[in-house]
């Protein structure tokens, strides 16, 4: 017989962004627990959550483990009687119950021990406390006192039901039971539940258990409004509410004179409101807030939200106007008071290093000017208030203060790309300033030993390096990458990893193609991208795969012969007429072709070597008895491999042959 199981961990409000990963973790831990105890067969597990409860529901948990047998081996048949008696005593049985069995090592006393399956209820009661406390949270707390259990927020109740029975256990002084709690304000504080009716009972207590139902409810309620799409904010609101209800509010159109970037940031980051667009895609003087309650019949809540937003906008307006009194240009010196990093000095020093780097990269006047002014917005009130707008605010002020388009846009964009989905800066000056900013951070941090390890990356160096790669490739900037990294080999290794990640996970190239191409060099990463595209295109053609296999064979032969090229030339006179000479001539022909071809046709030319290579391996013995001939053949193969290695290391390509 099998039973449904329900576990609800009732807590105080869990940070929204931690909930989905915690649920996944809970599911894994639970499945693992079932498997370990042999009761996981055919069980389906469902997880869900609100800010105040993590829920796990499982179907078809067997009532008990299957009975099992274990063959226990004792002393050999020849052992003295007292040893046999001792063995039986240890098992708690009479010696007559032992059985002599033949094994590969001889005959032994054995006993077939029957192990009765334990009830799942007991297993769960025993293991759940540990399991719950094992759920990973990025920042846990203790609340019952020093050395007490740790969880993300205090656990206040636990529902644990197997069928109609409570699975009895205790965590942090809280006993499991069958009593849950409804919506903080609108629901009952204590509700007796059953596994079958649990979700409906919560619904009656004004809690929507299902995150996807909450999401649907919000989407349904805003379907007539044109929202600025914001899936991240929607996720947040889904996990910040137990009973979400969307309401629409408005603000004075006078505020639309402020830049949309500022208004949207206030609404999104500070108030968690959706922005609304008009029919032309421009910002409308409206917003949508999501309440954690079911109605606002008198508009009290709407007016409250409107009042808060008005105050926030007034603040922003005040900052915007105050900041205009001092130009960016006049703020350069103030950067001496803003720390970049204790050991790497102030932002003034950083900006100076950025200017030097931009010059080194042959940036024009606009790029140099933008680099110089790029960090000045850190001294403005608006950025102190809305740090996420750094760069953007500088760009907007530069625009207001009459800086040329090239300059203000470069400042505006110089934190881009902030993610792999984000675009790179829109103009060349912006690309250079962004590169200089990120390269300076990378070089500086590596120099003082602040190198990311595991999940620790406080200065977001991975993102910076990724940004550099993306700008170079997508901006088609053929710059000497190694030199840009300042000759730090650890940094080179770090960046190579990021290049690999970019091609593999962002651009979705197969890993073997990426490895083959990067083995051919990455100092010019634009070139590497072109080689990669070419290889990817040529790969499905008929000759390429087999040729790659042949290259691998060549590499193995050279390795076995410990031959890494001795600098000598191929001696044409030593070549045997037929397949060997043919291959040599074909190689010379292709070499000539490839030298003047773009990558794709060049690769096709190289692939066209395949019949001659195949024939060579069919008919010619590399390991010839005559040492000179052997040497010459190895040289031919080595040249063949080396000649095209700057395009890619073809032996990295995984083939089926």
């Amino acid at each position, binding site marked *: 017989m099998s039973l449904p199981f329900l576990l609800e961990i009732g807590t105080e409000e869990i940070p929204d962004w931690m909930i989905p990963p915690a649920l996944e973790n809970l599911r894994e831990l639970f499945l693992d627990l079932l498997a370990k105890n042999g009761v996981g067969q055919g069980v389906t597990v469902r997880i869900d959550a609100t800010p105040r409860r993590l829920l796990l529901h499982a179907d078809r948990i067997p009532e008990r483990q299957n009975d099992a047998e274990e063959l226990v081996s004792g002393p050999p048949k020849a052992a003295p009687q007292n040893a046999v008696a001792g063995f039986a005593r240890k098992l708690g049985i009479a010696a007559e119950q032992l059985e002599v069995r033949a094994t590969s090592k001889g005959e032994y006393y054995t006993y077939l021990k029957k192990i009765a399956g334990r009830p799942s209820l007991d297993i769960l009661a025993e293991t759940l406390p540990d399991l719950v406390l094992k759920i990973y949270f990025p920042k846990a707390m203790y609340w019952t006192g020093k050395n007490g259990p740790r969880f993300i927020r205090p656990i206040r109740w636990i529902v644990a039901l197997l069928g109609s029975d409570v699975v009895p256990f205790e965590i942090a002084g809280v006993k499991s039971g069958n009593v849950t709690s409804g919506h903080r304000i609108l629901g009952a504080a204590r509700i007796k539940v059953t596994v079958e009716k649990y979700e409906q009972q919560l619904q009656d207590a004004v809690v929507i258990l299902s995150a996807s139902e909450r999401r649907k409810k919000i989407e349904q309620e805003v379907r007539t409004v044109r929202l600025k799409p914001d899936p991240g904010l929607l996720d947040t609101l889904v996990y910040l509410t137990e009973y979400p209800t969307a309401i629409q509010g408005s603000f004075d159109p006078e505020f639309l004179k402020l830049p949309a970037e500022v208004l949207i940031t206030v609404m999104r980051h500070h108030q968690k409101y959706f922005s609304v667009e008009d029919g032309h895609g421009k910002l409308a003087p409206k917003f949508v807030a999501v309440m954690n*309650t079911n109605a606002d019949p008198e508009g009290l809540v709407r007016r409250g939200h409107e009042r808060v937003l008005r105050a926030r906008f007034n603040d922003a307006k005040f900052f915007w106007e105050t900041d205009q009194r001092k130009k960016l240009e006049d703020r350069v010196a103030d950067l001496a008071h803003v720390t970049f990093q204790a050991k790497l000095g102030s932002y003034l020093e950083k900006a100076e290093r950025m200017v030097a780097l931009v010059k080194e990269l042959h940036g024009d006047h606009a790029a140099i000017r933008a680099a110089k002014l790029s960090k000045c917005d850190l001294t403005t009130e608006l950025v102190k208030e809305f740090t996420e707008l750094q760069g953007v605010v500088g760009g907007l002020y530069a625009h207001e203060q009459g800086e040329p388009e090239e300059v203000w846009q470069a400042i505006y964009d110089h934190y881009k790309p902030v993610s792999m989905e984000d675009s790179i800066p829109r103009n060349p000056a912006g690309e250079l300033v962004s590169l200089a900013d990120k390269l300076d951070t990378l070089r500086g941090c590596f120099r003082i030993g602040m190198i990311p390890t595991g999940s620790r990356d406080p200065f977001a160096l991975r993102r910076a390096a990724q940004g550099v790669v993306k700008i170079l490739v997508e901006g088609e900037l053929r710059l000497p990458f190694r030199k840009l990294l300042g000759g730090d080999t650890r940094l080179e290794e770090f960046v190579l990893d990021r290049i690999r990640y970019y091609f593999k996970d962002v651009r979705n190239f197969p890993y073997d193609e990426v490895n083959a191409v990067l083995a051919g060099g990455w100092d010019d990463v634009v070139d590497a991208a072109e080689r990669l595209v070419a290889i990817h295109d040529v790969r499905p053609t008929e000759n390429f795969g087999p040729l790659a296999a042949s290259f691998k064979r060549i590499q193995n032969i050279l390795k076995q012969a410990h031959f890494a090229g001795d600098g000598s030339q191929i001696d044409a006179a030593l070549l045997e007429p037929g397949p060997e000479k043919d291959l040599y001539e074909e190689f010379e022909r292709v070499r000539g072709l490839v030298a003047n071809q773009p990558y794709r046709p060049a690769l096709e030319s190289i692939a066209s070597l395949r019949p001659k290579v195949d024939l060579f391996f069919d008919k010619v013995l590399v390991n010839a008895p005559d040492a000179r001939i052997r040497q010459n053949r190895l040289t031919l193969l080595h040249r063949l491999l080396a000649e095209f290695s700057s395009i890619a290391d073809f032996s990295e390509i995984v083939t089926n042959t």
Partner: protein
Amino acid sequence: MDSGSYQELIFKLKKYWSDRDCIIQEPYDLEVGAGTMCPETFLRVLGPKPYRVAYVQPSRRPADGRYGENPHRLYKHMQLQVVLKPSPDDVIDQYLGSLGAIGIDLRQHDIKFEEDNWESPTLGAWGVGWQVMLDGLEITQFTYFQQCGGIDLDLVPAELTYGLERIAAFLQVKDSVYDIEWGGGATYRDVRFEDELQNSVYNFELADVATLWKLFDLHEGEAARLLNQYRKLTASLNPAEPRPTESGPSDAEKQRFPLLPTYEHVLKCSHLFNTLDSRGAISVTERVAVIGRVRNLAVGLAGAWVDQHGVVAAEAVG
């Protein structure tokens, strides 16, 4: 909705927490940046002794001064600070009850608990918790303390910090804190405007940097001197020896040692640091170092206080 005066709001909150077995303290008589820094919080959360207290604390943030021109930002705002040590299981219900007590019918409003962790590098203190949002307005900071003065806390206190001006403006439906009715026919402006204006002028324009530094050094020196003296006293007690059954003169000396006045000098340092900072007088390299200096004192003081109270506890038992 009830829209009583500002002072009535304060009375109601004090009454509410008084009814829940809190000591109602009066404001601490030194400049602090937050109610947390008062000994009633910073020191009382240390050690194993339960404590429940509530008090209004004017809190000074020199950099937030706006010459009385900004409707929401103040040089000196008032917090109602509640510390419940240890935090009761129904702490959130008790908190929500206090909102009911000041006339907020939560059934008609939108209340959310949004993650907001608290950390004070100068106090070596941190905790986790929320900002409590009422119709989009942050009305309270709710923190479960985890560490204070670099010491793991024996009992985890809940700290509730109500932003009184905001709550009053919400209740009275005012767009500017200066329009809040304070009581006795006066507005917040009548009571506080000059304070805001003149302190802004002082902090941003007239404070003499050299003098402030001199004061900082003097307070730091005095705090450090006293802390050292306490340490010497502790060392002379020789903790390797078992404690005598009857406490000797050294224990009595420890007990009467002026750690509370020492802490006041630390608080002075903290406030002077904030003033210097708002004046733009602290350079990059100095900043981290100065925070470190204040932190050293605060952490040292917390350790000494725990030590001193070990003696007090032993006395109480003996």
